[in-house]
Protein backbone atom coordinates (compact mmCIF):
# COMPACT_ATOMS: atom_id res chain seq x y z
CA UNK A 1 0.00 0.00 0.00
CA UNK A 2 1.38 3.38 -0.88
CA UNK A 3 2.15 5.81 1.87
CA UNK A 4 -0.07 8.81 2.30
CA UNK A 5 1.69 11.97 1.32
CA UNK A 6 0.86 15.60 1.10
CA UNK A 7 3.19 16.72 -1.67
CA UNK A 8 4.91 14.82 -4.47
CA UNK A 9 8.24 16.29 -3.38
CA UNK A 10 8.86 18.10 -0.13
CA UNK A 11 12.26 19.61 0.57
CA UNK A 12 12.59 20.51 4.23
CA UNK A 13 15.37 22.66 5.64
CA UNK A 14 17.99 21.26 3.30
CA UNK A 15 21.63 21.97 4.08
CA UNK A 16 24.36 20.91 1.69
CA UNK A 17 28.09 21.62 2.00
CA UNK A 18 31.23 20.88 0.03
CA UNK A 19 34.28 19.93 2.04
CA UNK A 20 37.26 21.30 0.12
CA UNK A 21 40.93 21.89 0.85
CA UNK A 22 40.07 25.51 1.56
CA UNK A 23 37.31 24.76 4.01
CA UNK A 24 33.61 24.00 4.10
CA UNK A 25 31.64 25.66 1.35
CA UNK A 26 28.09 25.98 2.59
CA UNK A 27 26.28 25.88 -0.70
CA UNK A 28 22.72 25.33 0.52
CA UNK A 29 21.61 26.71 3.89
CA UNK A 30 18.10 25.86 4.89
CA UNK A 31 16.06 25.53 1.72
CA UNK A 32 12.46 24.33 1.97
CA UNK A 33 9.81 24.03 -0.69
CA UNK A 34 7.04 21.75 -1.88
CA UNK A 35 6.30 20.47 -5.33
CA UNK A 36 2.96 19.01 -6.34
CA UNK A 37 2.25 16.72 -9.24
CA UNK A 38 1.99 18.43 -12.58
CA UNK A 39 3.20 21.78 -11.31
CA UNK A 40 6.15 23.79 -12.58
CA UNK A 41 8.48 25.31 -10.00
CA UNK A 42 11.13 27.81 -10.99
CA UNK A 43 14.32 28.43 -9.00
CA UNK A 44 16.02 31.70 -9.89
CA UNK A 45 19.40 32.93 -8.75
CA UNK A 46 22.88 34.03 -9.79
CA UNK A 47 25.76 31.65 -10.27
CA UNK A 48 26.77 30.46 -6.84
CA UNK A 49 23.36 30.98 -5.27
CA UNK A 50 23.01 27.28 -4.60
CA UNK A 51 20.18 26.57 -7.01
CA UNK A 52 21.96 23.84 -8.98
CA UNK A 53 23.35 22.29 -5.84
CA UNK A 54 19.81 22.06 -4.48
CA UNK A 55 18.78 20.15 -7.58
CA UNK A 56 21.77 17.82 -7.36
CA UNK A 57 21.07 17.26 -3.68
CA UNK A 58 17.59 16.07 -4.52
CA UNK A 59 19.00 13.62 -7.07
CA UNK A 60 21.95 12.91 -4.78
CA UNK A 61 24.46 13.27 -7.57
CA UNK A 62 26.74 15.68 -5.80
CA UNK A 63 30.47 15.60 -6.47
CA UNK A 64 32.56 13.50 -4.10
CA UNK A 65 33.34 16.41 -1.83
CA UNK A 66 29.70 17.34 -1.42
CA UNK A 67 27.30 16.04 1.16
CA UNK A 68 23.82 16.74 2.44
CA UNK A 69 24.50 17.78 6.02
CA UNK A 70 21.01 18.52 7.22
CA UNK A 71 17.31 18.45 6.43
CA UNK A 72 15.27 15.99 4.41
CA UNK A 73 13.83 15.45 0.96
CA UNK A 74 10.51 13.64 0.98
CA UNK A 75 9.47 11.95 -2.22
CA UNK A 76 5.93 10.63 -1.86
CA UNK A 77 6.43 10.66 1.88
CA UNK A 78 9.80 8.82 1.95
CA UNK A 79 12.96 10.62 2.95
CA UNK A 80 15.26 9.85 0.04
CA UNK A 81 18.28 11.30 1.84
CA UNK A 82 18.25 8.13 3.89
CA UNK A 83 17.91 5.79 0.97
CA UNK A 84 20.70 3.39 0.00
CA UNK A 85 22.59 3.77 -3.24
CA UNK A 86 20.62 0.88 -4.71
CA UNK A 87 17.33 2.54 -3.93
CA UNK A 88 18.61 5.81 -5.37
CA UNK A 89 19.52 4.06 -8.60
CA UNK A 90 15.90 3.04 -8.93
CA UNK A 91 14.90 6.62 -8.25
CA UNK A 92 17.21 8.36 -10.69
CA UNK A 93 15.95 8.32 -14.21
CA UNK A 94 12.74 6.55 -13.26
CA UNK A 95 11.04 8.70 -10.65
CA UNK A 96 13.03 11.85 -11.21
CA UNK A 97 15.20 12.86 -14.17
CA UNK A 98 17.50 15.78 -14.77
CA UNK A 99 18.72 17.57 -17.88
CA UNK A 100 21.84 19.68 -17.75
CA UNK A 101 23.07 22.95 -19.05
CA UNK A 102 25.61 21.95 -21.68
CA UNK A 103 24.35 19.11 -23.86
CA UNK A 104 27.68 18.79 -25.66
CA UNK A 105 29.65 17.79 -22.59
CA UNK A 106 26.71 16.04 -20.95
CA UNK A 107 26.50 13.39 -23.63
CA UNK A 108 29.23 10.75 -23.83
CA UNK A 109 31.20 11.50 -27.01
CA UNK A 110 32.18 7.92 -27.79
CA UNK A 111 28.70 6.39 -27.80
CA UNK A 112 25.88 6.93 -30.26
CA UNK A 113 22.80 8.87 -29.31
CA UNK A 114 20.69 5.75 -29.63
CA UNK A 115 22.99 3.81 -27.33
CA UNK A 116 22.68 6.42 -24.60
CA UNK A 117 18.89 6.67 -24.76
CA UNK A 118 18.51 2.91 -24.87
CA UNK A 119 20.70 2.59 -21.81
CA UNK A 120 18.15 4.56 -19.79
CA UNK A 121 15.29 2.47 -21.10
CA UNK A 122 17.11 -0.78 -20.43
CA UNK A 123 17.87 0.22 -16.87
CA UNK A 124 14.38 1.04 -15.71
CA UNK A 125 11.93 -0.96 -17.78
CA UNK A 126 11.45 -4.62 -18.66
CA UNK A 127 11.56 -4.01 -22.37
CA UNK A 128 13.81 -6.12 -24.52
CA UNK A 129 15.62 -5.82 -27.81
CA UNK A 130 13.50 -4.34 -30.53
CA UNK A 131 11.06 -2.83 -28.03
CA UNK A 132 13.83 -0.73 -26.59
CA UNK A 133 14.84 0.52 -30.01
CA UNK A 134 11.21 1.34 -30.77
CA UNK A 135 10.79 3.27 -27.54
CA UNK A 136 13.97 5.27 -28.22
CA UNK A 137 12.64 6.11 -31.67
CA UNK A 138 9.33 7.13 -30.15
CA UNK A 139 11.05 9.45 -27.71
CA UNK A 140 13.07 11.12 -30.45
CA UNK A 141 9.89 11.74 -32.37
CA UNK A 142 8.22 13.10 -29.27
CA UNK A 143 10.88 15.72 -28.81
CA UNK A 144 10.60 16.79 -32.40
CA UNK A 145 13.80 15.46 -33.95
CA UNK A 146 13.57 14.83 -37.65
CA UNK A 147 14.81 11.57 -39.24
CA UNK A 148 14.91 9.85 -35.87
CA UNK A 149 16.14 6.49 -37.18
CA UNK A 150 19.15 8.19 -38.71
CA UNK A 151 19.85 10.17 -35.57
CA UNK A 152 19.89 7.09 -33.38
CA UNK A 153 23.09 5.96 -35.06
CA UNK A 154 24.82 9.32 -34.90
CA UNK A 155 27.31 10.60 -32.36
CA UNK A 156 26.70 13.70 -30.25
CA UNK A 157 29.28 15.77 -32.09
CA UNK A 158 27.32 15.27 -35.30
CA UNK A 159 24.25 17.05 -33.95
CA UNK A 160 23.52 20.74 -33.43
CA UNK A 161 23.17 22.28 -29.97
CA UNK A 162 19.40 22.40 -30.06
CA UNK A 163 19.16 18.81 -31.23
CA UNK A 164 21.50 17.63 -28.51
CA UNK A 165 19.35 19.23 -25.87
CA UNK A 166 16.31 17.54 -27.37
CA UNK A 167 18.17 14.26 -27.13
CA UNK A 168 18.88 14.98 -23.44
CA UNK A 169 15.18 15.62 -22.90
CA UNK A 170 14.26 12.42 -24.74
CA UNK A 171 16.70 10.49 -22.58
CA UNK A 172 15.32 12.05 -19.41
CA UNK A 173 11.70 11.38 -20.22
CA UNK A 174 12.14 7.90 -21.69
CA UNK A 175 11.03 6.21 -18.48
CA UNK A 176 8.20 8.60 -17.70
CA UNK A 177 9.45 10.15 -14.48
CA UNK A 178 7.16 12.05 -12.10
CA UNK A 179 9.59 14.91 -11.80
CA UNK A 180 11.85 16.52 -14.37
CA UNK A 181 14.59 18.81 -13.14
CA UNK A 182 15.93 21.17 -15.78
CA UNK A 183 19.24 22.74 -14.77
CA UNK A 184 19.71 25.82 -16.95
CA UNK A 185 18.49 23.93 -20.02
CA UNK A 186 18.61 26.88 -22.38
CA UNK A 187 21.64 28.80 -21.17
CA UNK A 188 24.05 27.26 -23.65
CA UNK A 189 21.72 27.70 -26.63
CA UNK A 190 20.99 30.49 -29.10
CA UNK A 191 17.98 32.65 -28.33
CA UNK A 192 15.80 31.24 -31.10
CA UNK A 193 16.61 27.69 -30.08
CA UNK A 194 15.91 28.65 -26.47
CA UNK A 195 12.38 29.54 -27.39
CA UNK A 196 11.94 26.23 -29.24
CA UNK A 197 13.18 24.19 -26.30
CA UNK A 198 10.96 26.04 -23.83
CA UNK A 199 7.97 25.52 -26.08
CA UNK A 200 8.85 21.85 -26.31
CA UNK A 201 9.02 21.58 -22.54
CA UNK A 202 5.65 23.24 -22.15
CA UNK A 203 4.12 20.91 -24.70
CA UNK A 204 5.65 17.82 -23.06
CA UNK A 205 4.44 18.96 -19.69
CA UNK A 206 0.93 19.24 -21.02
CA UNK A 207 1.13 15.83 -22.70
CA UNK A 208 2.91 13.81 -20.04
CA UNK A 209 1.88 15.70 -16.92
CA UNK A 210 5.17 15.49 -15.01
CA UNK A 211 6.18 18.11 -12.44
CA UNK A 212 9.07 20.30 -13.49
CA UNK A 213 11.71 22.10 -11.44
CA UNK A 214 13.26 24.73 -13.68
CA UNK A 215 16.57 26.07 -12.42
CA UNK A 216 17.79 29.18 -14.21
CA UNK A 217 19.21 32.66 -13.88
CA UNK A 218 17.06 33.94 -16.72
CA UNK A 219 14.00 35.81 -15.42
CA UNK A 220 12.33 35.73 -18.82
CA UNK A 221 12.34 31.93 -18.96
CA UNK A 222 10.87 31.74 -15.48
CA UNK A 223 8.02 34.10 -16.14
CA UNK A 224 6.63 32.08 -19.03
CA UNK A 225 6.72 28.65 -17.62
CA UNK A 226 6.31 28.57 -13.88
CA UNK A 227 3.43 28.23 -11.45
CA UNK A 228 5.61 29.17 -8.50
CA UNK A 229 8.96 30.95 -8.38
CA UNK A 230 11.69 30.73 -5.74
CA UNK A 231 14.44 33.34 -5.65
CA UNK A 232 17.71 32.14 -4.09
CA UNK A 233 20.81 33.93 -2.92
CA UNK A 234 23.67 32.68 -0.81
CA UNK A 235 22.16 29.25 -0.46
CA UNK A 236 18.96 30.58 1.07
CA UNK A 237 15.54 31.37 -0.29
CA UNK A 238 14.92 35.10 -0.48
CA UNK A 239 11.44 35.14 -1.77
CA UNK A 240 8.83 32.78 -3.17
CA UNK A 241 5.54 33.34 -4.92
CA UNK A 242 3.66 33.32 -8.20
CA UNK A 243 5.14 35.09 -11.19
CA UNK A 244 2.76 38.00 -10.82
CA UNK A 245 3.58 38.52 -7.19
CA UNK A 246 7.35 38.33 -7.70
CA UNK A 247 7.47 40.55 -10.72
CA UNK A 248 4.95 43.17 -9.74
CA UNK A 249 5.30 43.17 -5.98
CA UNK A 250 8.84 42.18 -5.07
CA UNK A 251 9.39 42.13 -1.33
CA UNK A 252 13.08 41.34 -1.07
CA UNK A 253 15.85 43.78 -1.80
CA UNK A 254 17.64 41.22 -3.94
CA UNK A 255 14.60 40.57 -6.09
CA UNK A 256 14.06 44.28 -6.37
CA UNK A 257 17.66 44.68 -7.47
CA UNK A 258 17.32 41.91 -10.06
CA UNK A 259 14.23 43.41 -11.57
CA UNK A 260 15.76 46.86 -11.55
CA UNK A 261 18.80 45.67 -13.44
CA UNK A 262 16.80 44.37 -16.40
CA UNK A 263 17.35 46.79 -19.26
CA UNK A 264 14.06 48.53 -20.05
CA UNK A 265 13.57 49.30 -23.73
CA UNK A 266 11.27 52.14 -22.74
CA UNK A 267 14.08 53.85 -20.85
CA UNK A 268 16.96 53.33 -23.29
CA UNK A 269 18.65 56.60 -22.48
CA UNK A 270 18.85 56.02 -18.76
CA UNK A 271 21.84 54.52 -17.01
CA UNK A 272 21.68 50.81 -16.20
CA UNK A 273 21.26 50.00 -12.53
CA UNK A 274 23.17 46.86 -11.66
CA UNK A 275 23.43 45.29 -8.25
CA UNK A 276 26.70 46.57 -6.84
CA UNK A 277 29.41 44.30 -5.46
CA UNK A 278 30.20 40.67 -6.21
CA UNK A 279 28.47 37.43 -5.22
CA UNK A 280 29.08 36.27 -1.71
CA UNK A 281 32.01 34.07 -0.79
CA UNK A 282 30.39 30.82 0.28
CA UNK A 283 33.34 29.83 2.42
CA UNK A 284 32.58 32.55 4.88
CA UNK A 285 28.90 33.17 5.24
CA UNK A 286 28.11 36.25 7.29
CA UNK A 287 26.11 36.14 10.49
CA UNK A 288 23.18 38.05 9.11
CA UNK A 289 21.51 38.25 5.74
CA UNK A 290 23.67 36.97 2.92
CA UNK A 291 22.73 39.83 0.62
CA UNK A 292 23.50 42.56 3.14
CA UNK A 293 26.93 43.66 1.81
CA UNK A 294 25.45 44.48 -1.57
CA UNK A 295 22.13 45.86 -0.40
CA UNK A 296 21.45 49.56 -0.79
CA UNK A 297 18.75 49.50 1.83
CA UNK A 298 20.70 47.45 4.38
CA UNK A 299 19.92 48.06 8.01
CA UNK A 300 21.82 47.30 11.15
CA UNK A 301 19.59 44.37 11.95
CA UNK A 302 20.46 42.85 8.58
CA UNK A 303 24.05 42.51 9.76
CA UNK A 304 23.15 40.58 12.84
CA UNK A 305 20.26 38.30 12.13
CA UNK A 306 19.13 36.12 9.26
CA UNK A 307 15.67 37.34 8.32
CA UNK A 308 12.78 35.03 9.09
CA UNK A 309 10.37 34.10 6.35
CA UNK A 310 7.33 36.35 6.46
CA UNK A 311 3.98 35.81 4.77
CA UNK A 312 3.02 38.68 2.52
CA UNK A 313 -0.10 36.99 1.24
CA UNK A 314 -1.20 33.46 0.46
CA UNK A 315 0.84 33.40 -2.74
CA UNK A 316 3.84 35.26 -1.51
CA UNK A 317 6.49 34.89 1.18
CA UNK A 318 9.72 36.83 1.63
CA UNK A 319 12.74 36.75 3.93
CA UNK A 320 13.73 40.37 4.22
CA UNK A 321 13.82 42.73 7.20
CA UNK A 322 12.48 45.48 5.00
CA UNK A 323 9.04 43.94 5.39
CA UNK A 324 9.20 44.19 9.16
CA UNK A 325 10.34 47.76 8.87
CA UNK A 326 7.52 48.56 6.45
CA UNK A 327 5.00 46.93 8.76
CA UNK A 328 6.35 48.89 11.71
CA UNK A 329 6.16 52.12 9.74
CA UNK A 330 2.61 51.28 8.74
CA UNK A 331 1.86 50.71 12.40
CA UNK A 332 3.32 54.03 13.33
CA UNK A 333 1.22 55.69 10.67
CA UNK A 334 -1.89 53.92 11.76
CA UNK A 335 -1.13 54.76 15.39
CA UNK A 336 -0.43 58.35 14.42
CA UNK A 337 -3.75 58.60 12.66
CA UNK A 338 -5.75 57.49 15.62
Amino acid at each position, binding site marked *: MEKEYEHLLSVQDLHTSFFTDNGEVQAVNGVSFNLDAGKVLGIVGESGSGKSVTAYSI*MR*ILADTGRVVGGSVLYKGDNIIEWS*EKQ*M*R*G*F*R*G*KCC*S*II*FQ*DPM*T*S*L*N*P*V*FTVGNQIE*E*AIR*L*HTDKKGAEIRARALEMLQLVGINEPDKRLKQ*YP*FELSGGMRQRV*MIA*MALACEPDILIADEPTTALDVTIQAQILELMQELQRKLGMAIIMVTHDLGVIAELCDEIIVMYGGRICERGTADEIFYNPRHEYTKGLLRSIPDPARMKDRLVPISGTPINMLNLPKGCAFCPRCDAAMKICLEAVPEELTINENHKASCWCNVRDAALKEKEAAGNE
Partner: protein
Amino acid sequence: MARYIIKRVLLALLTILIICALTFFIMHAVPGGPFNREKALSAATIEALNQRYNLDKPLGEQFLIYMREFFKGDLGVSLKNGREISAIIGESFPISAKLGLLAVAVAIFCGTVFGSLAALTRNKLPDRIIVFFSTLSTAVPSFILATLLLLVFCIQLGWIKVWSATSHSYLLPVIALAAYPMAYTTRLAKTSMLDALGQDYIRTARAKGVARWKVIFKHALRNSLIPIITYAGPEIAYIITGSMVVETVFTIGGLGSKFVSAINNRDYTMIMATTIFLATLMVFANLICDLLYKAVDPRIQYD
Protein backbone atom coordinates in the same frame (compact mmCIF):
# COMPACT_ATOMS: atom_id res chain seq x y z
CA MET B 1 37.81 6.61 -43.49
CA ALA B 2 39.77 5.14 -46.38
CA ARG B 3 41.28 8.54 -47.07
CA TYR B 4 42.51 8.68 -43.49
CA ILE B 5 44.21 5.31 -43.75
CA ILE B 6 45.79 6.04 -47.10
CA LYS B 7 47.10 9.37 -45.94
CA ARG B 8 48.65 7.86 -42.85
CA VAL B 9 50.25 5.02 -44.82
CA LEU B 10 51.76 7.39 -47.34
CA LEU B 11 53.18 9.54 -44.58
CA ALA B 12 54.69 6.47 -42.96
CA LEU B 13 56.34 5.42 -46.19
CA LEU B 14 57.72 8.90 -46.71
CA THR B 15 59.17 8.88 -43.21
CA ILE B 16 60.84 5.54 -43.83
CA LEU B 17 62.33 6.83 -47.02
CA ILE B 18 63.74 9.87 -45.29
CA ILE B 19 65.17 7.70 -42.55
CA CYS B 20 66.83 5.43 -45.08
CA ALA B 21 68.33 8.36 -46.88
CA LEU B 22 69.54 10.00 -43.68
CA THR B 23 71.04 6.78 -42.40
CA PHE B 24 72.78 6.04 -45.63
CA PHE B 25 74.25 9.46 -46.14
CA ILE B 26 75.23 9.93 -42.54
CA MET B 27 77.03 6.60 -42.51
CA HIS B 28 78.86 7.57 -45.61
CA ALA B 29 79.97 10.78 -43.97
CA VAL B 30 82.47 8.75 -42.01
CA PRO B 31 85.84 9.60 -43.57
CA GLY B 32 86.81 6.97 -46.02
CA GLY B 33 83.30 5.59 -46.10
CA PRO B 34 81.94 2.82 -43.95
CA PHE B 35 84.28 0.31 -45.35
CA ASN B 36 87.52 1.75 -44.25
CA ARG B 37 88.70 -0.10 -41.21
CA GLU B 38 91.50 0.36 -38.81
CA LYS B 39 92.18 -3.27 -39.49
CA ALA B 40 93.86 -3.68 -42.78
CA LEU B 41 91.67 -5.41 -45.26
CA SER B 42 93.28 -7.60 -47.83
CA ALA B 43 93.30 -6.37 -51.38
CA ALA B 44 90.97 -9.13 -52.38
CA THR B 45 88.44 -8.11 -49.73
CA ILE B 46 88.65 -4.51 -50.83
CA GLU B 47 88.07 -5.57 -54.39
CA ALA B 48 85.12 -7.70 -53.40
CA LEU B 49 83.65 -4.88 -51.31
CA ASN B 50 84.05 -2.42 -54.12
CA GLN B 51 82.31 -4.72 -56.48
CA ARG B 52 79.57 -5.68 -54.16
CA TYR B 53 78.81 -2.24 -52.95
CA ASN B 54 79.51 -0.38 -56.13
CA LEU B 55 81.77 1.99 -54.31
CA ASP B 56 83.03 3.53 -57.50
CA LYS B 57 79.65 4.80 -58.44
CA PRO B 58 78.30 8.22 -57.35
CA LEU B 59 76.74 8.35 -53.90
CA GLY B 60 73.17 8.90 -55.04
CA GLU B 61 73.28 5.89 -57.26
CA GLN B 62 74.81 3.83 -54.49
CA PHE B 63 71.85 4.80 -52.36
CA LEU B 64 69.33 3.65 -54.92
CA ILE B 65 71.16 0.38 -55.42
CA TYR B 66 71.29 -0.12 -51.69
CA MET B 67 67.58 0.49 -51.33
CA ARG B 68 66.77 -1.84 -54.14
CA GLU B 69 68.84 -4.59 -52.64
CA PHE B 70 67.44 -3.92 -49.20
CA PHE B 71 63.89 -4.45 -50.25
CA LYS B 72 64.85 -7.54 -52.12
CA GLY B 73 66.13 -8.92 -48.87
CA ASP B 74 69.83 -8.38 -49.34
CA LEU B 75 70.93 -6.25 -46.44
CA GLY B 76 74.60 -6.55 -47.04
CA VAL B 77 77.30 -8.31 -45.17
CA SER B 78 78.54 -7.76 -41.66
CA LEU B 79 81.99 -6.26 -41.61
CA LYS B 80 82.84 -8.11 -38.48
CA ASN B 81 82.28 -11.69 -39.44
CA GLY B 82 81.27 -11.60 -43.05
CA ARG B 83 77.89 -13.16 -42.50
CA GLU B 84 74.82 -12.08 -44.35
CA ILE B 85 73.10 -9.44 -42.30
CA SER B 86 69.68 -10.70 -43.28
CA ALA B 87 70.59 -14.02 -41.72
CA ILE B 88 71.82 -12.36 -38.55
CA ILE B 89 68.62 -10.37 -38.25
CA GLY B 90 66.58 -13.41 -39.13
CA GLU B 91 67.88 -15.46 -36.26
CA SER B 92 68.12 -12.76 -33.62
CA PHE B 93 64.99 -10.75 -34.27
CA PRO B 94 62.42 -13.35 -33.15
CA ILE B 95 63.91 -13.34 -29.68
CA SER B 96 63.80 -9.58 -29.49
CA ALA B 97 60.30 -9.56 -30.89
CA LYS B 98 59.07 -11.93 -28.23
CA LEU B 99 60.75 -9.91 -25.52
CA GLY B 100 59.43 -6.66 -26.89
CA LEU B 101 55.87 -7.83 -27.35
CA LEU B 102 55.74 -9.24 -23.85
CA ALA B 103 57.06 -5.99 -22.48
CA VAL B 104 54.55 -3.90 -24.42
CA ALA B 105 51.67 -6.08 -23.33
CA VAL B 106 52.73 -5.98 -19.70
CA ALA B 107 53.33 -2.24 -19.78
CA ILE B 108 50.02 -1.32 -21.34
CA PHE B 109 47.83 -3.81 -19.54
CA CYS B 110 49.30 -3.46 -16.07
CA GLY B 111 49.72 0.26 -16.51
CA THR B 112 46.07 0.75 -17.39
CA VAL B 113 44.86 -1.46 -14.57
CA PHE B 114 47.05 0.14 -11.93
CA GLY B 115 46.39 3.64 -13.16
CA SER B 116 42.63 3.18 -13.17
CA LEU B 117 42.82 1.58 -9.74
CA ALA B 118 44.78 4.56 -8.46
CA ALA B 119 42.21 6.94 -9.91
CA LEU B 120 39.34 5.09 -8.32
CA THR B 121 40.90 4.90 -4.87
CA ARG B 122 42.22 8.42 -5.00
CA ASN B 123 44.19 9.54 -1.95
CA LYS B 124 43.58 6.22 -0.24
CA LEU B 125 46.16 3.54 0.39
CA PRO B 126 46.14 1.71 -2.98
CA ASP B 127 46.57 5.02 -4.76
CA ARG B 128 49.47 6.04 -2.58
CA ILE B 129 51.26 2.72 -3.02
CA ILE B 130 50.79 2.77 -6.78
CA VAL B 131 51.96 6.36 -7.04
CA PHE B 132 55.00 5.58 -4.93
CA PHE B 133 56.14 2.66 -7.03
CA SER B 134 55.43 4.28 -10.34
CA THR B 135 57.30 7.43 -9.37
CA LEU B 136 60.27 5.33 -8.35
CA SER B 137 60.14 3.38 -11.57
CA THR B 138 60.34 6.48 -13.67
CA ALA B 139 63.60 7.37 -12.00
CA VAL B 140 65.41 4.15 -12.80
CA PRO B 141 66.82 3.85 -16.31
CA SER B 142 66.21 0.47 -17.90
CA PHE B 143 69.87 -0.45 -18.04
CA ILE B 144 70.37 0.25 -14.35
CA LEU B 145 67.30 -1.75 -13.44
CA ALA B 146 68.46 -4.56 -15.70
CA THR B 147 71.91 -4.66 -14.14
CA LEU B 148 70.49 -4.51 -10.62
CA LEU B 149 68.03 -7.29 -11.33
CA LEU B 150 70.84 -9.36 -12.80
CA LEU B 151 72.93 -8.69 -9.75
CA VAL B 152 70.34 -9.54 -7.19
CA PHE B 153 68.35 -12.36 -8.73
CA CYS B 154 70.83 -14.10 -10.95
CA ILE B 155 74.15 -13.61 -9.26
CA GLN B 156 73.54 -13.12 -5.59
CA LEU B 157 70.34 -15.02 -4.97
CA GLY B 158 70.66 -17.37 -7.88
CA TRP B 159 66.89 -17.66 -8.21
CA ILE B 160 66.90 -17.19 -11.93
CA LYS B 161 69.46 -18.70 -14.22
CA VAL B 162 71.43 -16.52 -16.53
CA TRP B 163 70.28 -16.62 -20.11
CA SER B 164 71.92 -19.32 -22.12
CA ALA B 165 71.19 -21.55 -25.07
CA THR B 166 69.24 -23.93 -22.87
CA SER B 167 67.48 -21.83 -20.30
CA HIS B 168 65.48 -18.86 -21.51
CA SER B 169 63.96 -16.90 -18.70
CA TYR B 170 62.07 -13.89 -19.99
CA LEU B 171 60.93 -12.78 -16.55
CA LEU B 172 63.71 -10.41 -15.54
CA PRO B 173 64.33 -8.88 -18.96
CA VAL B 174 60.64 -8.17 -19.40
CA ILE B 175 60.48 -6.52 -15.97
CA ALA B 176 63.53 -4.41 -16.71
CA LEU B 177 62.17 -3.40 -20.09
CA ALA B 178 58.58 -2.78 -19.07
CA ALA B 179 59.18 -0.94 -15.79
CA TYR B 180 59.46 2.58 -17.14
CA PRO B 181 56.68 2.43 -19.76
CA MET B 182 54.43 0.73 -17.25
CA ALA B 183 55.06 3.48 -14.74
CA TYR B 184 54.42 6.15 -17.33
CA THR B 185 51.25 4.42 -18.52
CA THR B 186 50.08 4.15 -14.93
CA ARG B 187 50.39 7.87 -14.39
CA LEU B 188 48.77 8.55 -17.74
CA ALA B 189 45.91 6.16 -17.04
CA LYS B 190 45.32 7.70 -13.65
CA THR B 191 45.20 11.23 -15.00
CA SER B 192 42.99 10.37 -17.92
CA MET B 193 40.65 8.30 -15.77
CA LEU B 194 40.34 11.12 -13.27
CA ASP B 195 39.78 13.49 -16.14
CA ALA B 196 37.08 11.29 -17.64
CA LEU B 197 35.39 10.84 -14.26
CA GLY B 198 35.17 14.59 -13.85
CA GLN B 199 33.33 15.09 -17.10
CA ASP B 200 29.69 16.08 -17.34
CA TYR B 201 28.63 12.92 -19.12
CA ILE B 202 29.55 10.90 -16.07
CA ARG B 203 27.11 13.03 -14.08
CA THR B 204 24.49 12.35 -16.73
CA ALA B 205 25.11 8.61 -16.51
CA ARG B 206 24.72 8.68 -12.72
CA ALA B 207 21.60 10.79 -13.07
CA LYS B 208 20.14 8.13 -15.34
CA GLY B 209 20.59 5.61 -12.58
CA VAL B 210 23.59 3.72 -13.99
CA ALA B 211 25.40 1.66 -11.36
CA ARG B 212 28.74 3.00 -10.11
CA TRP B 213 30.91 0.24 -11.52
CA LYS B 214 29.21 0.41 -14.87
CA VAL B 215 29.77 4.15 -15.01
CA ILE B 216 33.48 3.47 -14.58
CA PHE B 217 33.87 0.54 -16.92
CA LYS B 218 31.53 1.57 -19.67
CA HIS B 219 31.47 5.35 -19.67
CA ALA B 220 34.77 6.45 -18.24
CA LEU B 221 37.19 3.75 -19.30
CA ARG B 222 36.68 4.04 -23.02
CA ASN B 223 37.33 7.76 -22.91
CA SER B 224 40.36 7.31 -20.69
CA LEU B 225 41.97 4.83 -23.10
CA ILE B 226 42.45 7.48 -25.73
CA PRO B 227 45.65 9.05 -24.31
CA ILE B 228 47.00 5.60 -23.48
CA ILE B 229 46.76 4.50 -27.08
CA THR B 230 48.35 7.74 -28.17
CA TYR B 231 51.32 6.97 -25.97
CA ALA B 232 51.63 3.42 -27.27
CA GLY B 233 53.66 4.58 -30.27
CA PRO B 234 56.46 6.29 -28.32
CA GLU B 235 56.23 3.43 -25.85
CA ILE B 236 57.09 0.89 -28.49
CA ALA B 237 59.99 3.06 -29.64
CA TYR B 238 61.24 3.18 -26.07
CA ILE B 239 61.01 -0.57 -25.72
CA ILE B 240 62.91 -1.12 -28.94
CA THR B 241 65.77 1.11 -27.83
CA GLY B 242 65.59 -0.26 -24.31
CA SER B 243 65.86 -3.78 -25.58
CA MET B 244 69.36 -3.01 -26.81
CA VAL B 245 70.73 -2.51 -23.35
CA VAL B 246 68.56 -5.07 -21.64
CA GLU B 247 69.66 -7.75 -24.07
CA THR B 248 73.27 -6.71 -23.59
CA VAL B 249 73.04 -6.87 -19.82
CA PHE B 250 71.28 -10.22 -19.73
CA THR B 251 73.45 -11.54 -22.56
CA ILE B 252 70.43 -12.39 -24.64
CA GLY B 253 71.33 -12.96 -28.25
CA GLY B 254 68.67 -10.70 -29.68
CA LEU B 255 68.90 -8.07 -32.37
CA GLY B 256 69.39 -5.32 -29.81
CA SER B 257 72.56 -6.73 -28.34
CA LYS B 258 73.84 -7.44 -31.84
CA PHE B 259 73.27 -3.79 -32.62
CA VAL B 260 75.20 -2.69 -29.56
CA SER B 261 78.17 -4.87 -30.45
CA ALA B 262 77.99 -3.55 -33.99
CA ILE B 263 78.35 -0.06 -32.57
CA ASN B 264 81.25 -1.04 -30.42
CA ASN B 265 82.95 -2.80 -33.30
CA ARG B 266 82.28 -0.07 -35.81
CA ASP B 267 80.51 -2.62 -37.98
CA TYR B 268 79.04 0.01 -40.24
CA THR B 269 77.08 -2.14 -42.62
CA MET B 270 75.43 -3.84 -39.71
CA ILE B 271 74.68 -0.54 -38.04
CA MET B 272 73.15 0.84 -41.19
CA ALA B 273 70.98 -2.15 -41.99
CA THR B 274 69.78 -2.60 -38.41
CA THR B 275 68.99 1.09 -38.02
CA ILE B 276 66.82 1.04 -41.09
CA PHE B 277 65.16 -2.17 -40.02
CA LEU B 278 64.35 -0.96 -36.53
CA ALA B 279 63.28 2.45 -37.72
CA THR B 280 60.86 0.90 -40.18
CA LEU B 281 59.48 -1.17 -37.36
CA MET B 282 58.92 1.92 -35.24
CA VAL B 283 57.19 3.78 -38.02
CA PHE B 284 54.83 0.91 -38.63
CA ALA B 285 54.09 0.63 -34.93
CA ASN B 286 53.16 4.31 -34.90
CA LEU B 287 50.97 3.79 -37.92
CA ILE B 288 49.05 0.98 -36.28
CA CYS B 289 48.54 3.11 -33.19
CA ASP B 290 47.22 5.97 -35.28
CA LEU B 291 44.68 3.66 -36.87
CA LEU B 292 43.69 2.09 -33.56
CA TYR B 293 43.19 5.55 -32.14
CA LYS B 294 40.55 6.24 -34.73
CA ALA B 295 38.69 3.11 -33.77
CA VAL B 296 38.39 4.20 -30.16
CA ASP B 297 37.58 7.85 -30.62
CA PRO B 298 34.98 8.57 -33.30
CA ARG B 299 35.60 12.27 -33.07
CA ILE B 300 38.87 12.17 -34.99
CA GLN B 301 38.29 13.99 -38.22
CA TYR B 302 39.20 12.37 -41.47
CA ASP B 303 41.81 15.02 -42.10
